[in-house]
């Protein structure tokens, strides 16, 4: 891992008591949900990470507790460094404070995570679905959400499958 990144990780460990992992030169630090706004603000203002490159989530159902990780990937243009902050979130009523006040691009990315994983972002100004239709049920990227498919129709089972197919009402 880069020396400059090591100093930043040490400072984060001292200020917030965060744990930390390393894989292939990437630094992954773990924060608690209530800390995240402070951690991101500190990374932006003190350590110079001016770009929130990616904001996404992972669902570890059913194997792991806490169920979700929300992932913040930050980039420092001035120092040419990257750091990843992971926030474990529990399965029941999952929620994380929003970072839209720190990075404006978090607005759409948090809406995407709400849409796909059903993780709420407290204080988000406009938490609506973004990619799926507004009346969609469920959150598709959760691991307990089945991947849909269409049954292939052949001559012998055409009518049987046709009966089950949803068609728009007149």
């Amino acid at each position, binding site marked *: 891992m880069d020396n400059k990144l090591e100093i930043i990780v040490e400072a984060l460990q001292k200020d917030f008591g965060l744990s930390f992992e390393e*894989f*292939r030169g*990437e630094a*992954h630090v773990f924060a608690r949900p209530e800390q995240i706004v402070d951690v991101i603000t500190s990374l932006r203002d003190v350590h110079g990470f*001016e*770009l*929130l*490159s*990616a904001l*996404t989530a*992972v*669902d570890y159902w059913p194997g792991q507790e806490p169920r979700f990780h929300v*992932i913040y*990937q930050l*980039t420092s*243009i001035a120092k*040419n460094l*990257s750091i*990843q902050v992971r926030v474990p979130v529990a399965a029941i009523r999952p929620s994380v404070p929003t970072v839209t006040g720190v*990075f*404006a*691009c978090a*607005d*759409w*990315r948090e809406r995407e995570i709400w849409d*796909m994983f059903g993780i709420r972002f407290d204080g988000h*100004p*406009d938490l*609506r*679905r*973004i*990619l*799926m*239709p*507004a009346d969609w049920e469920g959150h*598709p*990227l959760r691991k307990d*959400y089945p*991947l849909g498919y269409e049954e292939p129709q052949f001559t012998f089972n055409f009518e049987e499958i046709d009966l089950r197919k949803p068609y728009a009402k007149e």
Partner: protein
Amino acid sequence: MAQLQEVSVDDLKHLVSNRAIEGETMLLNMGPQHPATHGVLRLLLELDGEIVINCIPDIGFLHTGVEKNMEAKTYQKAEVMTDRLDYMNTVGNNLAYCMAVEKLVDLDVPPRAQALRVILTELQRIASHLVWIGTHALDLAAMSMFMYSFREREQILDILELVSGQRMMTTYIRPGGVWRDVPVEFEGAVRDFIKIFPKRIDEYEALLTKNPFLLDRLLGIGVLTKETALSYGVTGPILRASGVDWDLRKARPYTGYEQYDFIVPVRTEGDNYARYLVRVQEMRESLKIVEQALNNLPMGPVRSDNRKFVPPPRSEIGTSMEALIHHFKLWTEGFDAPKASIYSAVESPRGELGVFLEGDGGPKPYRIHMRTPSFENVGVLPELAKGHLVADLIAIIGSIDFVLGDIDR
């Protein structure tokens, strides 16, 4: 509350001003089927006369669940889905995905494959910018530009067809190298392109760069400051047109970009015209990279010989038992990746194309997230559009150069 003919805007009340609720300003639906939005993007506009007061993008019409689908496929099979994201930059998407897989499983790539990757992604970058310059000029009523730029793009697509058999959805770059070596005609075809293209850019510039009609629509319109751009996570030519010198090819050289001599064009104005100039200059720089890579194209294998991840060549399967086993295992089960996560990013024509990839020890990605640049670049559209005419909004959309497949995934 104002009412669109078909759509109730009740649930968007908090996004428009009070004047719209009183019916003083007009709400206008632009898209999803609108030629100037370059795809199925819907914009809900609040207009005071012809001035845009609020612009609310509505995306997701092209959502195909790429990330969910990739989780159900092995690492090799999931790659074909990356082509369908940003369909103007298919080779670049393959590169981003393969680099992520290679980083996750720690796989080496031979030098010849790296040089071929550079040549093809840079040609694709030129092709993408050619589509942009053609459609952008078409939106601004310069009809002939579209024909010229598509003529040159056709030549690049022919090169892609030559090496991969496909014009757009190539899947030519594979984890550990490229699909197969290029045919003998490849060098001649690229040399032909290198020979004619600088003159063609000069022609485009003669048509557009100082054209007063175009300057009227571009100069000083849609100014994006450095601070706003960074806060909205904007990357690529748009960020560089706002005065931030950030290009992953220079900052974090991958696939051997450190060997090539090129400059990263940066402008400080941040308006439509600066974005235009940056992209035109980028085409020239990409051509320089292609020429250098072609001149120094090393000989040797085009795929890694790590048989645990890369299938053996066809010739070996007939003679070696072990090769047959590897071939069988790789195409039925796939290869296993460690239980860990990585983030790897490349510079696509639109900005930082990042791949967050997490393995679970098995042959399928546990979670894959494509950080697509257009998503962030369109997020800044409401900021850019405010206070401009509707006609200027068309110019701003054109200068952002987004691809809906890249946004909706």
